[in-house]
C-alpha cells in the first residue's frame, strides 16, 4: 500500500491517546492496579458471548 491509501484516521487517534496517557502518568503511579480498575470499561460487556463468538476456520 502507499502512503495515500493508508488512512489517516488512526494516526490522529493514537496521538491523542498517547497524549492522554502522558497526562495520566504524570500524576500517581500508573501500575497494573490502575489498569485493573479501568479494564472493565474497556472490555466488551458480555464476556461469554464475546469469547464464544470468536470462531475461525483453522489456519496453518
Amino acid at each position, binding site marked *: *500500500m502507499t502512503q495515500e491509501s493508508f488512512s489517516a*484516521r488512526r494516526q490522529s487517534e493514537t496521538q491523542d491517546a498517547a497524549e492522554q496517557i502522558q497526562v495520566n502518568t504524570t500524576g500517581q503511579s500508573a501500575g497494573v492496579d490502575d489498569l485493573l480498575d479501568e*479494564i472493565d470499561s474497556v472490555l466488551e460487556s458480555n464476556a461469554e458471548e464475546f469469547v464464544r463468538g470468536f470462531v475461525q*476456520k483453522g*489456519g*496453518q
Partner: protein
Amino acid sequence: MDRRIFGLETEFGLNYVPSDGRRLTPEDAARHLFRPIVAWGRSSNVFLENGSRLYLDVGSHPEYATAECDQLLQLIAHDRAGEALMLDLVDQAEDQLMEEGHEGKIFMFKNNVDSAGNSYGCHENYLIPRKIEFKRLADMLIPFLVTRQLLCGAGNLVQVGEETKFVFSQRADHMWEGVSSATTRSRPIINTRDEPHADAEYHRRLHVIVGDSTMSETTQLLKIGATDLVLRLIESGEIYHDLRLENPIRSIRQISHDFTGQTVVRLMGGDEPTALQIQWVLLDSVKQFIAKHGAHHDRVEQIIELWERVLNAIEAQNFSAIDKDIDWAIKRKLLLGYAQKNSLELSSHRLAQLNLTYHDIDPSRGLFHLLRKRGLATSVVSDAQIRDAIFNPPETTRAVVRSKFIKAARATGRRYSADWVHMKYEEGQGGVVLCKDPFATQNDQVDELIEIMSKPV
C-alpha cells in the same frame, strides 16, 4: 551464518461483533477487510511497497509476511508495521460497513487459538546454508524448540479435565509431529517446505511453525535472537550435545502445562533432564561459542542476558524480574491480578476474555497495548521506526529492489507483477527479472526494466 535472512509470517484472528444484531461470517468480514487491498492491487494477495506480502490465507485468515530482513530490530519493526497495516484496514472496513448500514466493530487478534480449538500460526523463516545436513540440524534444533516456550510462549488458559490452567504456550497443544511437510492436517514443529526464495544451490529455508505469535517486542527479540544463536552453533559443527527427544510431541505439551520448568524430558539416549536443564545446556553452549568467536551483532549481549534472566526466574519461581518483558509472564500477572481483585476463578468467562483481548491489536483497547502504554511492557523499537517500516523496505536486503520496482511500476500505471524473486513488466518488452540474491540491494536488470517502463510503449 553471520548474516542471515529472517522473515515472519503472521496469521491474524478476525471477528466482527455487530451492535445491530446483524452478523457477518468470518469470510464476509475478511472480504470487507481486504476491499482496499483488492482496489489497490487487483488481488487479495499482494506485495506492498515496503516489500512485504499481504494476503488472505487458508481459512480466511488475514496474513502478513514481512519483507526479508537481516537484522533483528528491523524484523521487529516490520512485523509491527504489519499490525499497523491491519489496523488501518480494520478502520477502513468499519467505515465502509457503517456506510452500508452495518453497525459493529471488527476485532483483530494476534494470537493462535479461537474458542472452538482451531489454531493458526506465526511462522518463522531462517535462511540456512544448503550444505548443512538437515537431519542433524533438526535433531539439535527440536530439543531447543520444544523447550523454547519457556522463553517466549504467549501464555494461554486451557481446560485440563475439570481444571482451568494457565500454561506457557498457545501452540503446544496443536502440534502433532517433529518434522514434516504438512501445515494444517498434522502440524509439525519444523515444516520441510523448502522455498528458499534464493539460490537453492547454496541456501535452503528453515520453516519453523511451532512458535506462538508474539505481542511483546522484547519477547520477539529473544525468540528470534536465541533461535539464530542456536542455529549459528549448529552450523559451526563445533559443539554437539545429543539431546534428541524420545517423544517431542508428548514433551512439548507436558512442558507447556508445567510452570515449574521441572518437567522431565526423556531423551533417546535414556537420560532424563528437565525442560529447564535442556535450556541451560543450550544457553551454556551458546555462551561458550560466543566467548570463542565473538558476538555477530550488537544485540547478542542483551539476548543472552534476557535468556539467562528468564531461566533464573522460572527456576526461582519468581517471575517479577521478567513480567514486563516476556509475553506469558506479562499476561499471567494481568490475569492473576484481575482474578484476585475480582474474586474470580480462572475458569470464568471474564478471564477467557482477558486472555483473548491481550492479543487485540487495537491500541485503544488491546490489553497488551494498554500495558505497554503504561510502561508495564518493554519495547525495543520506536513508533517512528514502525511507521517508517509501513512505507519503506528494510534497507539492507533484496526488499529494496522489490520496493523500488513496485513504486516505479505504480507511478507509470503500467501492468506489473512482483513476488519474492520475480519482478515482471507485463506490457511490452523487458519481461521478467529473476532476483535470486536476498542480500543484494541493487539489481541492474531491474533498473533497466524500470527504465523501459518509464518510456512510452
